[in-house]
């Protein structure tokens, strides 16, 4: 009993001490400064003022400038003629192309890229994309055709590893007016992507070459272009693709009106680090078949001539970058072999090939200075009866180039 009383006393004493200490601490609380509320409100207002909206507009794009020094030797019937040119900037590859991007909420994206280049002022693309479903994008306007991957992904000067575009592959008209559906799809550990476009179609010219589609269709037939890509490895290091383009290319109401074009492209892209080297291999092969047609003879316009309008073009490019070596990781060495065969017995028939090598120095991830050398050989297969050049051409060119993504 005595023991219980003692506990009560100590309990009471503890309760008093706690109460006293709580009262003491309560007295030390500083009254809340109302100016803090004002400062918080001002800060909240500022944050709201700078908070991004649903829409967004920005300018990106690219610029490429350079210098080219070339020596060309034409040989015909044993007679050589040599020409030397120095061009500053390298006219064939100069461009200033700001790209305007409008994001309209989360579903729409408008892309417009005007370009000032060797051809004056032109437009690379002007289209509207609608992100319709997780892996489905719908597009309308003037856009890059899904034929191979070079034109759509690799042609920009700050992406390209060499100073020139691969002839033939890059000479193929790459843009058109129409509608497009595309997307990427997961397939377990693999991925695939699809891209299909319905457009006005390319136009066949009087010499049998093709030019890019017009805003007004040259015939009532629409052209289908489609590409299917597969990335078989989970780390996306390899992509292989196959493309096709099918449609009439001749102008309605002319002798070309039933002429069709059937074109195919095969592409490969392999990028992987084998420490300390980043290996990058790119390749594309195009086949162009244009139906039979009678063309006006440029020597005698009352006469016609014909030829098998079949062209092939392709390139293999390899570059290595020692990303794992501190002293060299900004350098990238690239080489490319290109082949381009155009129809024999036409005015532009030729078997051409070129070898290019280049050394890139990356100033940043998106700006590069490069020096490149290209050796080109063209053996004409054109018709002598059409007054075409039927000799051999050799051109050696040295390039200095700077390219930047804006």
């Amino acid at each position, binding site marked *: 009993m005595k023991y219980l009383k003692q506990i009560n006393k100590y309990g009471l004493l503890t309760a008093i001490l706690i109460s006293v200490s709580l009262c003491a601490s309560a007295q030390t609380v500083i009254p809340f400064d109302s100016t803090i509320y004002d400062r918080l409100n001002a800060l909240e207002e500022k944050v709201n003022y700078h908070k991004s909206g649903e829409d967004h507009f920005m300018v990106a794009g690219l610029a490429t400038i350079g210098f080219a020094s070339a020596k060309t030797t034409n040989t015909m019937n044993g007679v050589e003629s040599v020409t030397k040119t120095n061009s500053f900037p390298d006219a064939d590859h100069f461009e200033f192309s700001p790209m305007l991007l409008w994001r309209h909420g989360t579903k729409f994206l408008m892309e417009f890229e005007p370009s000032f280049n060797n051809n004056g002022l032109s437009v690379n693309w002007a289209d509207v994309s609608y992100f319709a479903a997780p892996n489905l994008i719908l597009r309308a306007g003037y856009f890059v055709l899904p034929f191979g991957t070079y034109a759509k992904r690799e042609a920009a000067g700050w*992406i390209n590893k060499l100073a020139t575009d691969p002839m033939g592959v890059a000479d193929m008209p790459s843009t058109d007016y129409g509608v497009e559906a595309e997307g990427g799809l997961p397939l377990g550990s693999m*991925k695939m992507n699809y891209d299909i476009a319905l457009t006005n179609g390319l136009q066949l010219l009087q010499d049998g070459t093709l030019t890019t589609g017009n805003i007004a269709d040259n015939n009532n037939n629409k052209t289908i272009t489609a590409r299917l890509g597969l990335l078989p490895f989970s780390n996306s290091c390899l992509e292989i693709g196959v493309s096709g383009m099918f449609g009439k290319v001749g102008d309605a109401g002319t002798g070309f009106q039933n002429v069709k074009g059937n074109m195919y492209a095969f592409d490969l892209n392999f990028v992987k680090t084998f420490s300390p080297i980043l290996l990058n291999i790119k390749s594309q092969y195009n086949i162009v078949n244009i139906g039979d047609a009678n063309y006006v003879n440029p020597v005698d316009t009352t006469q016609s001539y014909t030829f098998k309008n079949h062209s092939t073009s392709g390139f293999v490019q390899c570059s290595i970058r020692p990303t794992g070596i501190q002293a060299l990781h900004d350098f990238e060495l690239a080489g490319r072999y290109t082949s381009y065969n155009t129809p024999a017995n036409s005015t532009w028939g030729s078997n051409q090939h070129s070898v290019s090598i280049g050394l890139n120095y990356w100033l940043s991830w998106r700006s590069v200075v490069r020096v490149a050398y290209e050796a080109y050989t063209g053996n004409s297969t054109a018709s002598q009866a059409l007054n075409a050049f039927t000799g051999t051409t050799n051109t050696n060119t040295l390039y200095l180039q700077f390219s930047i993504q804006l």
Partner: protein
Amino acid sequence: MKKYKTIQRLSAVLIIVAAVITITSINGCAPSKAVAAKTGVQLWSENCQRCHNTPSPSTFSPEMWETVGMHMQTRALLTEDERKKIVEFLKSSR
């Protein structure tokens, strides 16, 4: 004529079979568990370099990355999930 009709029927059957396979494939499209678990930084290092050097996150503002991400999805045909993860990584690593 009989042969032509047989070819027509065969073509129709093939088209139907192809359509069923396509629809089934598309609906059944799903990444494996390992692929689905990939982080934004992994996808950034694997996918951007397929075309160009891997971009520095500090290049653009978060708003700009959203816009650039949409543009890149149309070019490289990334999946929606890949684009979202890469953009999120770029925005958070500036």
